[in-house]
C-alpha cells in the first residue's frame, strides 16, 4: 500500500500544500484515510511545477512512489489526457513495475479518476503491445530494455513527442552499470523527441547525491531528500564464545542469532555467500525449538521457490529468511523488523539500504544486528556503525559508459529511422556516462555498427548502414529484427558447471575461474583440483596431487570492501586512541601486533615476511578489497615466478594478501612498485579467461555475435563461432579494435579492479614499511589460518585436526595468551 506508513507517522510539517494539490481528488482520498502529504512529496511536486527535473532520496515506506507519480497525476487532472503517452515509469525489475501498477492503481480506481495506466514488459502479449502502440495509455510502466525496444521503432519520435514525465525508480540499484548506460542514452533520445520532458528519479539514500542528480537531471535538477526520521539502531552481536581468528562461518554465534531472530516479528538474516546461507539455514533449523518458520533465499534456487519466500514475507507468514544479496531487490519488506547481517557489511550504503528497506513505520528506528565472523570483520563492523552515526556513506565509483552499450544504442537509433553523426554525437554526450566520450571513440563505434569497423579489410558490401550526406540509415529495414533480438546488457552465464572428466562436481561462480590460467589449483568440494580451462560453459578440472591449493578458496558472490570503509578501518587500526570501543580480545590482539611488528594505518602499507613451516611467507596489509587483492596476488605470483622465487600460492582477504614461496623474499617492497600494474598486468590480462569473458560480453552486447536465447539450442556445430577464437584473431590483427578497447575498459573496475590497484599502489609509494620477522605476527594469524582452512581437504576436516593446527600457529605467534 502506497501510503500505509502515514498511519503511524508524519503529521503535516510545514511545506504548504499548493492549491492545485489541495483541490486534487487524491487529497480528499488521503484525508478520508486520515493521511497527509509528506513534505518531500510536496517539494517534488513544486520542483516539477517549476519545470525542473528532480531526484528524490528517501527510505522505503516514505511514499516515494507516490512522490514520483504526483506531478504526473496532478498534471493529468489539470489538463486532461490528450490520448498520447503522458508518463513513463521505468523500474529495474519487471515485478516491481507490476507491483507499482497495482499500488498506484488503487487510489486511481477508488477515486474513479479518468487516467489509464498499463505495464509493458517482455511478458506483455503481442496484441496488447500493438494496441499500446496505436492507443497508448496515459501512464506506461516498463523496464529499461523495453524502453530501448520502443525507442527503436520507426514511429518512436511521434509516439514519444508528447511525453511529459519519466520516472526512474530504484536508481541506486543500477547506477554506474551497463544497464544504466543504456537507460541514460535512451533518456537523451527521449529528450530529443520531447524537449520539455521532465525527469524524476527515485532512489534510496546515496552518499554522492550530486553525481546521481547529474546522472539523471538536465540543467535544472533539484535534489529532494526525505529526512530520515530516525537513525537506525545498529549494534554488533554480543556472544558468549570468543571471536574466531579467521573464517566466515559464524558458527560461534548461532545460538545468539537464533535468540535475536526469535524475538523479532520477521527477521531477515543476510549472509554474503550462498554456502553461508545454506550452512546458517541448516544450523538455525537444528536448534529451532520454537518452531519458527525459517526460509531461505539465494540466487541458485529456482525462481519459483524464491517467489514463494517473498510472498510469505509480504503476507507475514514467515518468521525468518536467510538470504543473500538476491533478496536486495525483493519487493515487500514492510513487516520486517530486524535485519541481521552476518559477515561484515563491506560498504556503508549497502548496509543502510538493507536496513532501510525493513520497517516501514517511520517513527520507529529500524533495527539491525551485525555479526562479524572474524576479528578483522569486527573492526569493519564497528567502522560501519561509526560511519552510519556520522552519516558518512560510500561514494559510488562512477565509470565511463560502455562502448559496447553505445554500439547497441547506435544500432537502435538507426533502426528508428537514422541519424546525423554530428547530432547523435551531441545527443550521446549529454548522457552522463558518455560526457567525456571522444569523437574518435564515437566514430569507431559508428563504423563498428556500420560494417564492423575493421581497419585492414572491410565489410562495406554487407554494411548494415548506408551513409548519405552525413546521414546514416538502415540499409535494409529487415535488419532491425537483428537489433530487437539482441537488446539488453545482461549477458547470461554467471554459473558454470565444474566437470571432472564426464562427472559434474557442482556449480561455481564464473567470477572465480575468471582469473585462473591452466595449471592453477583450487579447492572445491573438499578436493584440490587443477584448473584446465573453460569450455562451453563447463569448468574442466583434473585432480591435483598437491595437498595445498595455489588459488584461494572459492567463496563466491562476495562483495569487495568499499574504499571508504577500508579507509576507516585502516584509520581505526592505526590509532590506538580509537580502540576504546573494541572488546578486550580485539584490543589485546592489536596491542600485541604493535609490540611484535607494526600496525598498518591509513597512510602506510605494512609488509611482513617470516619463515613458517619450511616456507617463506609475505603478508601485505593492503585493505584494498578482495577483488583488487586477488588480481594483485596473481600479478605478484607471476612476477615471483619470473624472479625464480618459486612461489607456491597466495591467499587473500579484503584486508590482506599473503604469498608463500620456497625461497625467501628479499626487498618485497619492490613487488609493490606501481610498475607491476603496467608491466605485468597487460600480459596477465591477455592470458586470463576473464578477459575473454569480458570480450564475449562486449561482443554480445554490441551485437557482433548473437545472444543465445533461453530455450534455443545449438542446431549444428558450426552455427556458433567461439568468441575466444574471435578474440585471438582480433588480438593478432587488430589489437586496437573498438571492441577490445571496450573489454579493456571493463577490466578497470569490478572483478579485476585495475583502477583500485593502480590507485592504491601509487598512494603508498614511499610509504611501504617492510618488517622482516622471525615468526608469524599476531595480525598475520587470521590470514595464515585462512590458508590452512582453505587448503585442508574437506573430507578430512576433522575438527580436532583443525584445532591442533590452530593451536600450533597460535603458539608460534605467542598470542595464545590473548584468549
Amino acid at each position: 500500500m502506497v501510503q500505509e506508513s502515514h498511519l503511524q507517522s508524519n503529521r503535516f510539517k510545514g511545506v504548504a500544500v499548493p492549491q492545485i494539490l489541495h483541490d486534487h481528488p487524491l487529497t480528499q482520498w488521503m484525508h478520508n484515510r486520515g493521511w497527509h502529504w509528506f513534505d518531500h512529496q510536496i517539494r517534488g511536486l513544486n520542483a516539477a511545477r517549476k519545470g525542473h527535473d528532480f531526484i528524490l532520496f528517501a527510505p522505503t515506506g516514505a511514499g516515494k512512489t507516490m512522490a514520483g507519480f504526483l506531478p504526473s497525476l496532478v498534471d493529468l487532472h489539470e489538463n486532461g489526457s490528450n490520448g498520447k503517452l503522458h508518463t513513463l515509469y521505468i523500474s529495474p525489475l519487471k515485478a516491481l513495475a507490476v507491483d507499482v501498477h497495482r499500488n498506484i492503481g488503487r487510489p486511481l480506481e477508488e477515486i474513479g479518476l479518468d487516467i489509464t495506466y498499463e505495464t509493458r514488459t517482455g511478458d506483455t502479449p503481442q496484441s496488447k503491445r500493438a494496441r499500446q502502440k496505436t492507443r497508448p495509455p496515459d501512464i506506461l510502466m516498463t523496464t529499461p530494455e523495453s524502453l530501448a525496444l520502443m525507442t527503436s521503432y520507426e514511429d518512436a519520435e511521434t509516439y514519444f513527442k508528447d511525453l511529459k514525465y519519466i520516472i526512474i525508480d530504484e536508481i541506486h540499484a543500477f547506477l554506474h552499470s551497463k544497464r544504466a548506460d543504456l537507460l541514460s542514452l535512451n533518456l537523451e533520445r527521449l529528450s530529443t523527441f520531447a524537449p520539455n520532458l521532465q525527469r524524476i528519479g527515485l532512489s534510496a539514500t546515496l552518499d554522492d547525491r550530486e553525481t546521481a542528480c547529474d546522472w539523471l537531471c538536465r540543467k535544472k535538477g533539484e535534489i529532494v531528500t526525505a529526512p530520515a526520521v530516525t537513525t537506525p539502531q545498529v549494534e554488533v552481536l554480543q556472544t558468549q564464545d570468543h571471536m574466531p581468528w579467521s573464517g566466515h562461518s559464524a558458527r560461534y554465534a548461532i545460538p545468539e542469532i537464533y535468540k535475536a531472530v526469535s524475538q523479532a516479528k520477521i527477521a531477515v538474516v543476510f549472509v554474503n555467500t550462498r554456502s553461508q546461507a545454506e550452512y546458517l539455514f541448516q544450523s538455525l533449523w537444528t536448534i529451532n525449538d520454537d518452531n519458527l518458520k525459517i526460509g531461505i533465499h539465494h540466487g541458485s534456487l529456482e525462481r519459483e521457490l524464491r517467489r514463494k519466500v517473498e510472498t510469505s514475507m509480504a503476507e507475514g507468514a514467515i518468521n525468518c529468511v536467510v538470504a543473500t544479496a538476491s533478496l536486495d531487490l525483493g519487493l515487500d519488506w514492510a513487516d520486517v523488523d530486524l535485519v541481521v547481517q552476518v559477515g561484515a557489511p563491506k560498504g556503508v550504503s549497502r548496509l543502510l539500504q538493507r536496513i532501510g528497506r525493513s520497517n516501514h513505520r517511520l517513527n520507529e528506528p529500524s533495527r539491525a544486528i551485525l555479526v562479524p565472523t572474524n576479528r578483522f570483520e569486527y573492526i569493519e563492523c564497528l567502522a560501519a556503525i561509526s560511519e552510519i552515526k556520522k552519516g558518512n556513506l560510500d561514494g559510488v565509483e562512477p565509470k565511463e559508459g560502455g562502448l559496447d552499450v553505445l554500439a547497441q544504442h547506435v544500432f537502435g537509433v538507426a533502426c528508428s529511422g537514422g541519424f546525423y553523426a554530428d547530432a547523435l554525437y551531441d545527443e550521446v554526450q549529454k548522457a552522463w556516462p558518455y560526457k567525456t566520450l571522444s569523437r574518435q571513440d564515437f566514430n569507431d563505434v559508428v563504423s563498428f555498427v556500420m560494417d564492423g569497423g575493421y581497419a585492414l579489410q572491410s565489410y562495406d558490401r554487407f554494411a548494415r548502414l548506408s551513409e548519405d550526406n552525413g546521414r546514416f540509415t538502415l540499409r535494409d529495414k529487415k535488419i532491425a529484427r537483428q537489433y530487437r533480438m539482441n537488446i539488453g546488457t545482461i549477458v547470461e552465464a554467471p554459473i558454470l558447471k565444474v566437470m571432472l572428466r564426464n562427472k559434474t562436481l557442482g556449480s561455481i561462480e564464473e567470477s572465480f575461474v575468471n582469473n585462473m590460467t591452466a595449471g592453477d589449483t583450487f579447492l572445491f568440494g573438499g578436493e584440490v583440483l587443477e584448473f584446465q580451462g573453460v569450455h562451453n560453459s563447463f569448468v574442466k578440472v583434473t585432480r591435483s596431487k598437491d595437498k595445498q591449493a595455489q588459488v584461494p578458496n572459492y567463496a563466491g558472490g562476495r562483495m569487495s570492501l568499499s574504499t571508504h570503509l577500508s579507509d576507516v578501518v585502516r584509520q581505526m587500526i592505526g590509532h590506538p586512541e580509537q580502540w576504546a570501543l573494541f572488546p578486550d580480545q580485539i584490543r589485546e590482539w592489536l596491542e600485541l601486533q604493535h609490540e611484535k611488528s607494526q600496525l598498518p594505518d591509513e597512510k602506510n602499507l605494512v609488509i611482513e615476511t617470516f619463515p613458517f613451516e619450511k616456507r617463506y611467507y609475505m603478508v601485505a596489509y593492503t585493505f584494498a578489497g578482495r577483488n583488487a587483492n586477488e588480481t594483485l596476488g596473481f600479478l605478484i605470483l607471476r612476477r615471483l615466478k619470473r624472479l625464480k622465487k618459486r612461489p607456491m600460492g597466495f591467499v587473500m582477504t579484503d584486508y590482506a594478501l599473503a604469498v608463500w614461496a620456497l625461497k625467501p623474499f628479499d626487498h618485497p617492497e619492490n613487488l609493490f612498485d606501481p610498475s607491476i600494474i603496467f608491466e605485468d598486468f597487460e600480459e596477465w590480462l591477455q592470458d586470463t579467461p576473464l578477459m575473454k569473458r569480458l570480450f564475449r560480453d562486449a561482443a554480445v552486447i554490441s551485437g557482433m555475435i548473437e545472444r543465445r536465447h533461453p530455450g534455443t539450442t545449438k542446431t549444428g556445430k558450426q552455427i556458433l563461432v567461439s568468441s575466444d577464437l574471435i578474440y585471438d584473431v582480433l588480438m593478432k590483427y587488430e589489437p586496437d579494435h573498438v571492441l577490445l578497447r571496450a573489454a579493456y575498459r571493463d577490466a578497470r573496475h569490478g572483478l579485476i579492479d585495475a583502477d583500485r590497484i593502480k590507485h592504491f599502489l601509487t598512494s603508498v609509494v614511499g610509504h611501504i614499511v617492510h618488517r622482516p620477522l622471525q615468526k608469524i605476527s599476531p595480525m598475520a594469524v587470521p590470514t595464515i589460518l585462512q590458508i590452512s582452512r582453505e587448503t585442508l581437504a574437506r573430507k578430512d576436516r576433522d575438527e580436532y585436526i583443525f584445532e591442533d593446527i590452530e593451536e600450533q600457529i597460535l603458539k608460534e605467534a605467542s598470542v595464545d595468551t590473548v584468549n
Partner: protein
Amino acid sequence: MSTPSIEFAGHKFQPQLCGALYWQSENTLIVSDLHFEKASHFARHGNFIPPYDSFETVNKLKKTCDRLTPKRLILLGDVFHDQYGYQRMAEQARSIFDTIISGHELIWIDGNHDRGHAPENVVVHEKVDIAGIVFTHIATDNPMCEISGHYHPCHIMVHKGHKMRRPCFIFNEKKIIMPAFGTLTGHLECGSPAIRSIIPDPHFAVLGTNRILMK
C-alpha cells in the same frame, strides 16, 4: 625426435602440427575443412566478426606447402564455409590461394558447406581413390580404407599434467578423420557418438602446441 606417422592401408602418413596430413611416398598434402570466409558468411547476416580468418588460414596453408613442397594437394571438403565464399574472398587472400591451387596437382573434394562450388576450372569430386584409399569429405560405411574430414575432431589431451582440448586426427585401421584446418572452426569432441559410431576403437594423433602426441 622422429616425425610421428600413421601406418594406414600399407602407407605411411605424417600428421602435421598445423592439422595437415602429409603422404610422403605420393608427395601429397591433404588438408580438410578450411572453412574460408566463415567470418564474412556471418557478416552477410550482420554479425561482423573479424574478417581475417581466410588470410590467417591461407597463410598457414602456404607455409605448409612451402615447407613440404608437395606435388599433389588434396582439399578434403568444406574449403569454403558456404557456396559463395570464393567470390567473397578478399584479393590478398585469394591471390595466395590461387597461387597454391595452380601450383599443385589439385584434387578438390566436395564438402557439405560449399557443395558443388569451386573456383573456375577446378574439378569437383565427390570422392577419389588413390592407391586403394578413398578420399571423401564425410566418412561412409564403405569397407575400404577411407580418409575424411567434416567432424573437426578434438581430444582432451593430458600434457605435463595439464589437460587441454586440442584438435586431433582420429583413426583406426580403416578410417582416418582429419582435424579442421581453418582458423575460426569449432570442434567436436572425439567421445561424441557421431565420431564413435564411425571409429569405435580409436587411436589419436593429438596436435599439441609444439608436438604431436600419438596415443
